[in-house]
């Protein structure tokens, strides 16, 4: 399997902070890669750097064979990368329909694709003409994901889709991502919820303090409880 996205030695500074300190990892074609790590490890910065919302101060970000590290955000998006930020970035004053129409950059909404999405995000159909600000947290998250995939994308970046959501909605979200995987969309998912990550992930990278500290297959990590504890968890010697 070849890699769709490859980061090599990526450094990002935000003001005086040196957040990414040489990040290397790859996202293979067609799979779902999970980026794990605790709060403040640099996961969100990593996605924002890929999107060009922060500029990398050093390093290469190769997408589909071209270096996109110096590209502007719209240019990155136009290459076929969809982005669901942690804040979801819903336009609350626009209706559900308008949010999706805006995201369909290449023209009118594709009815068939829309029907396909309504199957696993039925709330969107129900509230089609409601301003998105009135949706619940889970519905907003669905809209945010739907918006990112309203047109077929080569790569989807999703930042903590389960944050703040109730268990039943998380279960629903799992189904949606499974459906999405079937369409051969490559996905890079930032998560803290390990269970959610384990259910969906093919490969995994773990970040800490601005670096990748582990990468490999999700199954290997899921089977190795000691490793899990060391990388993610609660054990005494997790740190230094």
């Amino acid at each position, binding site marked *: 399997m070849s890699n769709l996205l490859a980061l090599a030695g990526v450094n990002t500074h935000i003001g*005086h*902070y*040196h957040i990414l300190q040489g990040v290397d990892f790859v996202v293979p074609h067609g799979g779902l890669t999970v980026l794990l790590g*605790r*709060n*403040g490890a640099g996961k969100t910065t990593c996605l924002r750097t890929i999107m060009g919302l922060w500029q990398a101060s050093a390093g290469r970000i190769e997408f589909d064979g071209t270096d996109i590290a110096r590209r502007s955000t719209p240019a990155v998006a136009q290459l076929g990368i969809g982005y669901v930020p942690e804040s979801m970035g819903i336009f609350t004053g626009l209706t559900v329909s308008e949010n999706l129409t805006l995201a369909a950059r290449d023209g009118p909404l594709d009815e068939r694709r829309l029907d396909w999405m309504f199957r696993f995000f039925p709330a969107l159909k129900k509230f089609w003409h409601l301003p998105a*600000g009135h949706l*619940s*947290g889970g519905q907003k998250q669905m809209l945010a994901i739907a918006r990112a995939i309203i047109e077929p994308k080569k790569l989807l970046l999703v930042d*903590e889709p*389960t*944050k*703040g959501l*109730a*268990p039943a909605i*998380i*279960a629903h979200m*799992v189904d949606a991502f499974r459906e999405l995987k079937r369409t051969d969309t490559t996905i890079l998912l930032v*998560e*803290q*919820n*390990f*269970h*959610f*990550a384990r*259910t969906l992930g093919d490969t995994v990278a773990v970040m800490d*303090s601005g670096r990748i500290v582990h990468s490999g297959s999700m199954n290997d990590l899921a089977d190795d409880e000691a490793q*899990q504890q060391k990388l*993610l*968890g*609660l*054990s*005494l*010697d*997790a*740190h*230094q």
Partner: protein
Amino acid sequence: MSEPRSGEHPVLETHDLTIRFGGHVAVNRVSCAFGPGTLTAIVGPNGAGKTTYFNLISGQLSATGGTVKLFGEDVTSLSAPQRTRRGMGRAFQLTNLFPRLSVLENVRLAVQSHAAMGLNLFSVWSSHVELIERAEHYLHRVKLADRRDALASALAHGDQRKLEVAILLALDPDLFMFDEPTAGMSVDEVPVILELIHEIKNQGDKTILLVEHKMDVVRSLADRIIVLHQGELVADGEPAVVIASPIVQQAYLGLAGHE
């Protein structure tokens, strides 16, 4: 400001403290009391509401429900500066300094606030030698004395975090609130901060709240852990017991979500 007070009331109490953002309940009816001389760690996964809980206590956010009491006095409707004047001190997760003022000046301003001299109009600030000496003393404690004349913005990240702590010390609060004090610090800088927190704790009359992810740090410092998950208080007790409890393991590893 910080004269000893009678022990009838806990230093800090929150009762049914709640805040909603739109439909999302970020902190949900959290009731908890913190006594003098204790160090409580607040843990929980990302988005659990820890920093929001802190913001509600220190007054950066106002609650949609519930109360905050400091030494038995209801401070829920007071502003952040008013709470600070009553003995709360807060260090921030993201460093939050006065970038174009000197390191010494950053600390001196906190000393000056503690001395309630902010509205002093007609004396020269440098004539208040005692304030400057106190500020220097706190810089010594965080090992920043040699950078006193540098601009705060010129400090390295780790040093900025130390300065953040020095400002907190300079407020000489009864209640210390640390929000991930060691985040982003290099390995050799962390002990300086931990040592300081230890010292404050050993004074015996201060109350410390600590939001922290690193469990080794939590274990080495805390007498008590409370766990927030999805805005609710899900566990409260001694560190060893709480860390071992299944509910906490689940909250952290996300097991609570699915089964």
